[in-house]
């Protein structure tokens, strides 16, 4: 049962068709959630007692940081599935997820800098969390560079998957060493208000935004993955059939 399910979702034609059906739903959910979340977070949620209105960037900063890390693990798991079962679709998912994750990491870093200026008085601080985000960004760039360096795409896919898996082992080590390095240098200075200490009136829109970002990520991942399918399967029969029926329909 599970095996047939796995095989079916691993087949590019099936995935292309089903993702086409799923996309509008995710798209509508994304639009609604992001609209509700941003209006709620930016206009309705109360002003912070100490940070004023500047704290409101949390509604972009935190969701993108969530996805930066979750995206890396999604990418690595896709690579692992590809390596073990030699599934083409999983490799394409890795290729689709890499630039997306890098973009999310970049957004988290840049919004963090914008937030840091009014609250900490500096654009950049070598804080443990910021530094490990930056290193995560480098890891993404490495995976992308390696995947694109190979002329033989299959080799590139496999090499990038191996590197993504090495990264998953390394992320905790890097995080712990950076944290240790930072605490050695300057002690605990910057305490970000963690999600649990935030007031419920501010937390609720944050959750809406986080779920909205997850939906946005799903939409973008599916779109990227469909592009990968189209470019990799451009010579295959099912794709020519699919497009010839749709265009001949237009002509008549």
């Amino acid at each position: 049962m599970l095996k047939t399910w796995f095989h079916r979702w691993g087949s590019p034609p099936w995935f292309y068709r089903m993702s086409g059906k799923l996309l509008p739903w995710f798209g509508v959910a994304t639009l609604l959630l992001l609209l509700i979340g941003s209006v709620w977070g930016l206009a309705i949620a109360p002003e912070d007692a100490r940070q004023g209105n500047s704290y409101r960037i949390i509604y972009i900063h935190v969701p993108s940081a969530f996805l930066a890390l979750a995206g890396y693990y999604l990418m690595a798991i896709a690579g692992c599935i590809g390596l073990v079962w030699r599934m083409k679709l999983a490799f394409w998912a890795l290729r689709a997820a890499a630039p997306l994750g890098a973009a999310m990491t970049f957004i988290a870093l840049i919004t963090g800098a914008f937030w840091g200026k009014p609250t900490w008085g500096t654009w950049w601080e070598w804080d443990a969390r910021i530094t490990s985000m930056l290193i995560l960004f480098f890891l993404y760039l490495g995976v992308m560079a390696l995947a694109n360096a190979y002329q033989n795409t299959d080799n590139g896919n496999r090499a990038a998957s191996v590197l993504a898996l090495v990264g998953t082992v390394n992320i905790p080590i890097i995080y712990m060493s950076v944290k240790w390095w930072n605490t050695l240098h300057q002690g605990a200075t910057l305490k970000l208000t963690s999600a649990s200490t935030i007031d419920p009136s501010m937390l609720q829109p944050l959750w809406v935004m986080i779920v909205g970002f997850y939906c946005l990520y799903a939409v973008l991942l599916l779109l990227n993955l469909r592009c990968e399918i189209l470019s990799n399967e451009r010579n295959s029969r099912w794709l020519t059939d699919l497009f010839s029926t749709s265009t001949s329909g237009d002509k008549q």
Partner: protein
Amino acid sequence: MSTLTATLQREWQLAWRNLSDAINPLVFFLMVIALVPLGVSAESSRLAALAPGMLWVAALLASLLSADMLFRRDYDDGMLEQYLLLPMHLYGMVWIKVLIHWLFTGLPLALLSPLLGGMLSLPVAAMPITMLALALGTLCLSLLGAIGASLTVSLRRGGLLVAVIVLPLYIPVLIFGASATAQTAAGTTAWGQLAILAAFDLMALVLTPLVVITGLRIAVEG
């Protein structure tokens, strides 16, 4: 003669016959360190503050430069395929190659470091620990470099790519190594950092050959 001793003998001989591969990273190390006073300041107090970090960053780059050559010659002349066909587990081959690479690049780097530390006005008391930390740290760097080398060996222009892949993985070694040097320079002991570097070595010795073997298989099968 077993396959392992034959491999060891072959790699040892090759390393001696290509000594320039070992000397170039050392010269590079020396040159980078010589650039620091020229670029920053020749004042010994400022140099001493920079010394631990600069020594380690330069060591990282030197080790990175030599990593690219780990498997390239074997890939070019077809020896890598022969290794993959041998009836032995490749763990041994990877260990031998990396250990010999370390003996010819990492260890000389560590031995040279007192001289370079002196050029950067690093306190003499910090030298022995720095040497030990560099010896331990470069082994881990060689192992991590082998990952980058194996994943890029079949590419014609792998050099810069190895840097992009491997440098983020080097960061923990840099942090603990530089802090070992800085702490002994400040007059305290740094056995904790050395222990962590040794732990990194052990972990890398066990785990990296798995990745390297997969990387080499991809390179040869493709």
